[in-house]
């Protein structure tokens, strides 16, 4: 088991290194520089000074080696498109907000998705089952910005307008945008979590139906175990395995992939920095975020694989 973990961590480091190297060379292959991306008015002289100052006039391999050296020392450099603030500082201020949104969405999505899947499987062909199908279709096919807009209009504007006419106050239960207190988190977390709800509900339903037909469920029933105990102790745990696998990929996706929702709800998270840094040829910012995200995603997958060992004893032997 320990050897397995060590092997996985070494592999993770290699993965991160490969991602970093590829991103570095791809970024530098895009035409333009951090100081001139299009029709900027910067003079040739100023450009030359800046390029020398940030070492961008050096041969690419030297820049690469220097970058790797800096990363190993924990120095991610400064962001040229954000007033030369340090990349580390930007990540440290903005990521907690993205992560906050992501974790809320993930918790909501996982719990709601799994419970909905269980309910649907227990009442196959009944109303709950059909409802879960409808939710899954909406969650997968309706883009988050559409769902977000609808909720902003109905729950944000509509509800607060109604509250104002009836109770004569400006209280907003579901504020339209920004990230201030718990109320503000409700709609964005819901919208971001819907995709998770949809896919997990379907997966959990299929997985449950598969488990329900297994022989050991009949054994449990023949032992006189009550219906609820069979569902929770025997069925759900076994049905969770495929869900856990998918969850690993989702953690990375949900926590990092909220650019659209962050812009729509004016949430000061990390998403906008990544997209902006690419258009601004902000090499250090793009690289810093890529390395950070890859560490994050690789780590969450590793975590899930370890979690798998906890849930499924059969994996533990296969070192």
């Amino acid at each position: 088991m320990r050897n397995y973990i060590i092997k996985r961590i070494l592999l993770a480091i290699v993965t991160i290194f490969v991602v970093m190297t590829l991103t570095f060379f791809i970024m530098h292959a895009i035409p333009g520089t951090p100081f001139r991306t299009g029709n900027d008015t910067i003079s040739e002289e100023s450009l030359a000074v800046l390029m020398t100052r940030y070492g961008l006039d050096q041969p690419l391999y030297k820049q690469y080696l220097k970058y790797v050296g800096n990363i190993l020392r924990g120095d991610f450099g400064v962001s040229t498109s954000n007033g030369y603030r340090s990349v580390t500082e930007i990540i440290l201020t903005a990521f907690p907000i993205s992560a906050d949104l992501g974790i809320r969405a993930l918790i909501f999505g996982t719990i709601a998705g799994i419970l909905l899947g269980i309910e649907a499987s227990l009442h196959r062909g009944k109303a709950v089952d059909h409802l879960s199908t409808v939710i899954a279709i909406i969650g997968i096919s309706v883009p988050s910005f559409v769902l977000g807009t609808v909720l902003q209009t109905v729950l944000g504007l509509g509800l607060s307008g109604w509250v104002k006419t009836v109770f004569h106050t400006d209280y907003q239960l579901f504020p339209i945008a920004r990230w201030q207190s718990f109320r503000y988190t409700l709609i964005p977390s819901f919208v971001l979590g819907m995709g998770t709800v949809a896919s997990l509900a379907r997966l959990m339903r299929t997985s449950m139906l598969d488990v329900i037909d297994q022989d050991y469920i009949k054994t449990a029933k023949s032992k006189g175990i009550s219906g609820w105990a069979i569902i929770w102790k025997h069925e759900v745990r076994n049905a969770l395995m495929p869900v856990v696998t998918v969850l690993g990929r989702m953690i990375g996706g949900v926590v990092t992939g909220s650019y659209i929702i962050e812009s729509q709800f004016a949430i000061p998270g990390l998403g906008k920095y990544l997209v902006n840094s690419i258009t601004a040829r902000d090499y250090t910012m793009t690289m810093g975020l890529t390395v950070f995200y890859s560490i994050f995603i690789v780590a969450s997958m590793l975590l899930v694989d370890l979690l798998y060992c906890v849930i499924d004893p059969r994996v533990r032997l296969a070192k």
Partner: protein
Amino acid sequence: MLEIKNLKVSFHAYSGEVQAVRGVSLELKSGDILAIVGESGCGKSVTAQSVLRLHDPAITDYKGGEILLDGKDLLKLSEKEMQEIRGKVISMIFQDPMTSLNPTMTIGNQIVEVLREHEKGADGKKISRKEARERAIELLKMVRIPNAERRMNEYPHEFSGGQRQRVMIAMAMACAPRILIADEPTTALDVTVQAQILELMKEMQEQKGTSIIMISHDMGAVASIAKSVAVMYGGLVVESGTVEDIFYRHEHPYTRGLLDSVPKEGQPKDRKLDSIEGTPPDLVKPPVGCPFADRCKYAMKVCKDHMPPENALSESHRCSCWLLDPDCPQPRLSLKEYDAKEGDQNNG
């Protein structure tokens, strides 16, 4: 003790109503080992699992009959009352020990679970986890699992097939049930292990006085363990009696066919095994008459049109076949005599 009277069970499938059991009557006496034999799809498993009502209620219809345990009809009990009977009064082991244990739960916890569901501790309250564990270790020792203490914490995949079936038996015997239903307990096991499992079941019956219903299509296993036998075909019991009645004095052509299809010692290697030609009847549209008529070489016109009545051949021996009818052209001839006669005609 356990009496099944005219049980009828149907399943609702896409193809229509499958009449899996069409009026089965059986009796299990205290201390008996009753074997239900027959080929796949004859309704033997359905009959046995109906005793514990394990079928999915959404698609199962108990259309008629009674399952009486000490005079109480199990088919009329609530689900809650059934739970108190399952695992405590009647327990069950299944065909495939590889898939019958929960893969994500330790063996120990699976045994403890059934004990904690039904048993009371020394203080008269629900048995404590610690006491249940001790009892579980004893049970594993009883079914001869070596290093029982250590193996309590292991998972099913760490056990061999035979050991898993032993664990199943330990689990089924945990609350000292009065009846053990074994649904093809040796079918999925190696031949050498089969004998050990049968031996173990026999031991349980002798030491604990548990009555056993064993479902099988292995006539060898039946001969070595059963005291009485019921032969099922097409959702009906066609012949029943003591093990001697069935093996030595059988009257039903189907029973004969089953016994003939067992390979015999000293049989020449190049000789093909005897088999019963044809396939079992479609139970969505079951035949009006004797279900075996289509495959029976002794079939008469009456067999196809009318269900044969049950004939009592002795105190224990029952057989439903028109050949035993007093109006049959050659009544009361044993099947051997029939064949001999037929042989004479062919020769002559």
